[in-house]
């Protein structure tokens, strides 16, 4: 199911257009008020735009002369809060979609049980939503959305209301179930975009300011927001048992994150610029990672200086800049401890 989206809402100053390919997950990024929620509301049929189209799999859902009601769109919505129906059991919640779209009681319950198993929540089937933790409830909400067999899945900051401790597990789950699904996800978190989305669309002030493959946009951000949003060093390559090997053969040691990569599969090493030390010469005999780079740019960052070297960045003190004689064109070595490097499995479709 591919989707074509054009949204014009004059009142909110939104004028946005993008495509979602079949089976693709697109992340909508952008500061508050950029138009992300408005776009999602138009996709779900909750808001009728002043102009534009929503075309899903060749069928026009929203257009100048056409508007399909939310229930007839098959665009399931998963919001920040799980919003499980409090008067229904977990199983009945998940069976709600199939029941509403005409499945018999028995078939709906069977389908619900299957989806609960899919999200590892089969043992919660008979509970009431009030008896679930936040993470469990969101897991069930995922099963409920999927059980409705949506043509397009809409996720509105699905991890934002969760504890830091349980977010990784849900992220892993979403990564698994979204793999072959056409999905639009609004997020504020760089890891969500990195691990869930094939492509990102960056909105700012109601306009698309940047779009492209996730790794491209986050490692070579062209918009100010994407750069700020990323704020991270990203080294893409192939997973090894203890790190990531860059295409040029350089090995970066790191600690496996959640989800852990499988050796030989695409992976990314992620580390903060503040974790990078800059050395004039490669430090010998050290277990730390050394990346030979050429400084491309220096920019002030509070009382630090951000040293950019191509796609990588290091934050150092002004004293270090003076001491090392840093300037564009100078060859140096970026050094980062293995404990500061997180290694993640990379997007499903390496476009």
């Amino acid at each position, binding site marked *: 199911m591919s989707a074509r989206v054009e949204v014009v809402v004059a009142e909110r100053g939104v004028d946005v257009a993008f495509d979602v390919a079949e089976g693709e997950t697109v992340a909508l990024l952008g500061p508050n008020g950029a138009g992300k929620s408005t776009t999602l509301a138009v996709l779900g049929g909750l808001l009728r735009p002043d102009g534009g189209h929503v075309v899903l799999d060749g069928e026009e859902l929203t257009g100048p002369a056409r508007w399909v009601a*939310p*229930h007839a769109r098959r665009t399931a919505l998963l919001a920040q809060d799980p919003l499980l*129906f409090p*008067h229904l059991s977990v199983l009945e919640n998940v069976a*709600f979609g199939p029941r509403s779209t005409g499945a018999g009681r028995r078939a709906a319950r069977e389908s619900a049980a299957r989806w609960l198993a899919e999200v590892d929540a089969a043992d919660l089937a008979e509970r009431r939503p009030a008896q679930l933790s936040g993470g469990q409830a969101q897991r069930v909400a995922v099963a409920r959305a999927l059980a409705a067999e949506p043509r397009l899945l809409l996720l509105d900051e699905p991890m934002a209301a969760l504890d830091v401790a349980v977010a990784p597990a849900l992220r892993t789950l979403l990564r698994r179930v979204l793999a072959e699904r056409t999905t639009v996800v609004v997020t504020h978190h760089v890891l969500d975009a990195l691990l869930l989305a094939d492509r990102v669309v960056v909105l700012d002030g109601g306009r698309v300011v940047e779009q492209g493959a996730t790794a491209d946009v986050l490692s070579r951000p062209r918009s100010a927001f994407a750069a700020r949003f990323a704020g991270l060093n990203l080294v893409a390559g192939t997973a090894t048992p203890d790190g990531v090997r860059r295409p040029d053969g350089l090995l970066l040691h790191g600690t496996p994150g959640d989800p852990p990569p499988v050796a030989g599969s695409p992976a990314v090493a992620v580390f903060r610029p503040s974790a990078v030390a800059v050395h004039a010469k490669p430090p010998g005999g050290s277990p730390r990672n050394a990346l030979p780079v050429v400084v491309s740019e220096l920019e002030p960052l509070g009382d630090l200086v951000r040293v950019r070297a191509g796609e990588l960045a290091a934050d150092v003190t002004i004293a270090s800049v003076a001491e090392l004689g840093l300037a564009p064109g100078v060859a140096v070595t970026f050094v980062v401890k293995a404990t500061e490097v997180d290694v993640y499995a990379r997007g499903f479709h390496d476009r």
Partner: protein
Amino acid sequence: MSHTRHVGLPRWLFVPALLAGAFVVLPVVAMTTRIAWADFPSLVTSEAARSALLLSLKTSTASTVLCLLLGIPLASVLARSEGRWIGVLRSLVLLPLVLPPVVGGIALLSAFGRQGLLGGELEALGIRIAFTSVAVVLAQTFVSLPFLVVSLEGALRTAGERYDVVAASLGARPTTVLRRVTLPLVLPGLASGAVLAFARSLGEFGATITFAGSLEGTTRTLPLLIYNLRVTDADAAVAMSLVLVVVAVLVIGLVRPKGSL
């Protein structure tokens, strides 16, 4: 036992609060002191008393059902719509709450009476409403409907639309959403609204006597019987009043869901 301290409630407030409670309870208690207990069983089981009580329960049940049938759609529309006309409609629906019931009875007579606005049409269909049991039910529904609508509309507004949106996104048609999500979520509000409507119907007097008259067995409900007996047989009036108090307390106390109203 631990107690939650209510910060910011001045102690002197308890004095007028107790006074208010006493003001409501004292007259009812006083009434029980006037009861001729020796004659009580025969007074409340007389033919007239039993027929009035039965009629009251029947008509109040019927009017509560009618309130639900009409009030649920009205409250839903009021809670989920916007615009100036909805505001006007909301105010008009509250009219029976502030109108003297006698005026309500005259209004009903003007609409459904033989000489009324629809009297001719109803007559042509062979339907006579005024001074029948149907008139009693209509009078009770007229005064009780706002109780149900206000209670339910408040509950619907508090519940919000978020669950409805999710249900629709899962493929549920508007009717399915209303039946399986919206109404079940406001069940406590709906129940307390229905109980209030029933209680108000049970106590209805002014509109009933104006629109339906006071015919034993047909339109003479318990409040009307009590009013009749008040002059001729004061003991019986007091005894029947106690019966009405007991029924009212049972309805409010037993049927009312916990934590609502």
